[in-house]
Each structure stands twice: as structure tokens, then as C-alpha cells.
């Protein structure tokens, strides 16, 4: 009984991580190795040449910078707007609160495609196509982030808030110096989720950016794919390079990510 379960566990681990191991493995192969039959699983002579070549072909520094700017700005923006809105929804009483929250939730029903065109027209009208503001501005608020923050603020005890009021804290101080630090785990979770979501954002950057100078990770990788479609080791090296930052972030923040699931659910973007 126990051994079957352990076997299942092992199988699952291998099945889940195999494509990634393979990705790294192929990225170390020579260009012609994959042409043999049967195709090898491991490189004969591991080489880092593909990485050097991919780094040269993919303007990695530029792409990395663009994606980092996008993900960083959106992370800060989403944390601030979600925390403020979630705080109001969770800890304040005002007429229409529940109705407005329901309206916020209702926007989740709008498919991305519906919004993409008018958003593009809007961004185009202000002349932001192919600029950082155009790339970033539409992503600055996340309704799921608001739900997450609201939830975590709901769970905080009333006592500390009231103690701070008696200590003479104003509304802003209360939020910024007391409540936000108390909700720190949720803030970190949201920041990580926002960062990773933006690192993997594809549709919007594809539409709103034009020049190679503005390409972000996913778009650049897709372009790399169509340019070097035959050369798999190249592409795999590029894929590893593009994914590496997210893997690192994930490794560091795994604990917080697991926590985020409690509320946000499966919001895998495909």
C-alpha cells in the first residue's frame, strides 16, 4: 500500500518535471545531436555555446530590462491599489460597499479579448503604443489582488487597529504603518503573483508593442521561435534564460505562493 503510493509520488514528480529537465538538457546539446534517431535524452558533450549564442541573438539585457520594468511597476502598482481597495472593502463601512465589491468581481467575467481592442484604441489615442506607459498602465489594478487583500484584511484582529486609533494614528498612518505591515504575508504573496503573471504576460505586450526595443520576455521568445525554428538547442537555451528569473523568484517565495492559492485559485494564464 505504502509502496504503491510512493511509486505514484515518484511517477508524478518525474512526469511533472521531465519537460523542464529535458528543456535544460537540450539547451546543452550541439545543434545536430537532435537529428539522430532515436533522439538522445542527454547531451553527449554538454556545451554552453547555445547560451552564448542565444544571449547574442536575443537582446537579453534589453528584453530582461523591459520585462523587469513591466513586472516591477505592475507589482508595485497592484500591491498599492489592491491593498488600498481591499482595506476599504474589508475594514470600512460605507453605503454601497457590497454592491461595489460585487461590481468589481463582475469585471472578472469580461474576457481579456473584449478589453484588448478598446484598450488598444485608448492607448493608441494617447500615443502610448510601443511605450512603457502603454505596456504598464492597463495592468496596474488586479481585481483578484483586491480580493486577496480584502480577505487578508478581514482576518486581522480589530484590537490592534483600535489600539492604534487610541494611540492617535490618523487614517493614513493606520493604513500605512499598522494595517499594511500586519498584512505583510498577503502583500508578499500578491507581489510575487503580480510579478510572475507579468513576466509571463503575452497577449497585451504582443498587441501594444511593435519594436524589438520594447519586446518583453514572452514576446521575444515567441519571435525567437519563429526566427530560429529549426534550431532547438538555441531555442531551449533562450527559453531557459527567459524563465530563469521566474524560477528564482518562485524558489525564494514558494511559501508565500502556496498561501496565495488559498484565495486566488487556479488562475493559470494560457
Amino acid at each position, binding site marked *: 500500500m505504502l509502496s504503491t503510493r510512493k511509486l505514484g509520488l515518484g511517477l508524478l514528480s518525474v512526469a511533472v518535471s521531465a519537460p523542464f529537465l529535458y528543456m535544460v538538457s537540450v539547451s546543452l546539446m550541439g545543434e545536430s545531436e537532435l537529428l539522430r534517431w532515436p533522439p538522445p535524452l542527454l547531451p553527449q558533450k554538454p556545451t554552453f555555446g547555445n547560451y552564448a549564442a542565444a544571449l547574442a541573438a536575443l537582446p537579453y539585457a534589453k528584453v530582461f530590462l523591459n520585462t523587469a520594468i513591466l513586472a516591477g511597476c505592475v507589482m508595485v502598482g497592484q500591491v498599492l491599489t489592491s491593498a488600498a481597495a481591499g482595506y476599504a472593502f474589508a475594514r470600512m463601512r460605507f453605503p454601497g460597499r457590497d454592491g461595489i465589491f460585487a461590481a468589481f468581481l463582475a469585471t472578472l467575467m469580461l474576457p481579456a479579448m473584449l478589453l484588448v481592442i478598446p484598450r488598444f484604441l485608448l492607448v493608441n489615442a494617447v500615443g502610448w503604443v510601443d511605450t512603457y506607459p502603454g505596456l504598464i498602465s492597463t495592468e496596474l489594478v488586479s481585481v483578484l489582488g483586491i480580493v486577496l487583500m480584502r480577505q487578508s484584511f478581514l482576518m486581522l484582529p480589530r*484590537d490592534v487597529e*483600535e489600539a*492604534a486609533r*487610541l*494611540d*492617535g494614528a490618523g487614517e493614513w498612518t493606520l493604513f500605512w504603518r499598522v494595517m499594511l505591515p*500586519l498584512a505583510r504575508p498577503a502583500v508578499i504573496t500578491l507581489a510575487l503573483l503580480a510579478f510572475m503573471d507579468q513576466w509571463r504576460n503575452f497577449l497585451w505586450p504582443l498587441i501594444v508593442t511593435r519594436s524589438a526595443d520594447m519586446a518583453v520576455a514572452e514576446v521575444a521568445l515567441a519571435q525567437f521561435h519563429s526566427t530560429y525554428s529549426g534550431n532547438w538547442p538555441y531555442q531551449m537555451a533562450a527559453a531557459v534564460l527567459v524563465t530563469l528569473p521566474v524560477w528564482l523568484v518562485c524558489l525564494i517565495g514558494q511559501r508565500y505562493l502556496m498561501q496565495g492559492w488559498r484565495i486566488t485559485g487556479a488562475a493559470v494564464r494560457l
Partner: protein
Amino acid sequence: MASVTLRRLSKVFDGGVQALHHLDLDVRDGELLVLLGPSGSGKTTVLRCIAGLEEPTTGEVVIGERVVTHDSPAERDVAMVFQSQALYPYLTVRENIAFPLEMRGLAHAQATRRVLETATRLGLQSVLDRLPSQLSEGERQRAALGRAIVRGPQVFLLDEPLARLDAPLRIELRAEVLALHRAIAATMIYVTHDQAEAMTMGQRIAVLHEGRLRQVGTPEEVYQRPADVHVARFFGTPGMNVLQGRGRAGDKGRVIEAGSLVIPVELSTYEGELQLGIRPEYVGLCAVDQGVGNVDVLVVEPLGSETLVHLNAGGQPLVARLPGFADVRVGTRVGVKVDRRRLYLFDAAGAPVA
């Protein structure tokens, strides 16, 4: 320091629950008043109305000479110690104590000095740079006290500050709070549901029951001369026995019948339903038919210095408190004696009868 006056204070919560009914209360300048009541009696609501955390539905809150009913908590210059301590978990003890000073824009040097003074007074010097999670329960409660006293507010509000502590620590800290009160001569309102604590701490005790103020007086007054049956029941361990009975004219003058007891009472003006109160220490046992009635022994609790005997007096519970180990057997039938000078009589609504 300042007095606190509540005038006709009422609070109705959003759900329609009326927590307070027309409360009038004067807390004198420099006094330690204990607000006592069972849970759900509204004592915490009173405290929160004074602090400004709740807005009363009607009535006024006056601190010193100032009507503060609609002021924000920050404007009232009151400090509050919470049962949960409510320390900022991400700040050190030093920062926690300094927080109210910082909020009031006190100069840094002055704030540092005051924090140090307060910490010294409470014996917290050695843990100033620790986080609340690294403190013992007692140290945490001291830190919470420190945060309250550091800015020298007009009024201290303490909301069951010791309820979560274990017994020895509670007794230790109770003494410390009393010493603190003497040292800074502050106006303190201390909320508790523990009547023993109330008796030991309060200069005066205000008893709340179901949102109404039943009695305000010294510990002796509320124990000896309870204003109504609720107050009477609340004090003492165990509380007063209250038997439902009626007065009538008997063979040898007037008597009160309560369960299986028939007690002769000098009662000229009242006949009909009433409630008879006897403290357990004034209930004695004797042989069958020798006392004012016969009862069945249900449970015997020997506690060492005394023995509690739970009795069934014709369907009504009665507790007797006997000194030392008493030789009473469960299931036997015994007679009951009562000290007739120590009887309390209340009418059906609970108000005392002459």
C-alpha cells in the same frame, strides 16, 4: 487627570440589539472604578463608548469638563489596554511604547526618555529590543500597560487585561496595577467579569447586567446591600442562593414558603410572589425536621477549608457552605437552618423588599 461622566448613555447596534439602556455613571477624578458584569452585559461597550471606538446612539460622554460624545478616539486623550494586548507584532517593545508618543509628534529625545522611564517602572528594561512574540505573557501585558501609561492620558481604560493570564501571574499583575494606580493617581476604569478581582481592586464597583447599571458602590456595599437580585447573585463564591417563594400568614405569624422550606419572616406589607436570597455561608444543616424544612443532599464538594453541599429544596437548588470537612452523605435527607437576620427579600421583578 479627569473625571468621566456618562449621561443617559444608550447604544443600539446595527442589528437592532440594544446593548446599553440609559446609563448614568460618574467616575471621580483619580478613582479606580471596576466595571463588573457577566459576559454580554455591555461592560465592554461602555468602555468602547468612553474610548470613542463606538458612537453612542443617544446620551453623552463627558471627560473632565468636555463633552466628547462625537470626538474621535485620538481627540479624547484616553488610553486603553486590551485583553489581547494588541501590541504591534512587527515593532519592538521600545517602538511599541514609543508609538503613541510618535503619533502625537513628541520630540525624539523626549520620547526616548519617557519610554525609558516607563520601561523602568514596569521592569521591561531588559526586553526593550525584543519583538512581542519573543516575550512571556506577563511581559507582553506589561508592555501593553507601558504603551498606555507612557503618554500620561487623562483616563485609563482596561478591558479585562488579566483575563488571559494564569492565576499566579494574574494575582501578581493585579497588585502591580494597583500600585501603578497609586503611583500615578490616574482615573482608571477597569472592566472584568471576575467578581473576586472586582472586590480586591475597586475603590468602587459598578455592576452591569443586561445593559443596565444595577448598582454602584464600594465592595462592601455591593456585597452586603445588593441593589437587586442580579447583583446579589453575582457576588460571592458560590453566589447567593435565590429561592422562588411566596409569603403567607402561617400558624405562628407570617412565613415565606420556598420549595420545601417554610421560613418565619417579619413581613407586614407584602404578600405573594417573591424571591428569597440566602448566602451559602448562612445555610446550616441539622437533623431532619429540626430546621425550617427538609432537603435532599445531591452533591458534596469537600474543598479542604470548607465543604460545599448542593441540596434539593423541593425542586429548587440550594447550596450550603460548611467549614472544614462536613460529614454529609449524598442521597440522605437532612434538615436546614438559616440565619434569619441574613435573609434578602426581593420581589418578583428582582427589586429588594424592605
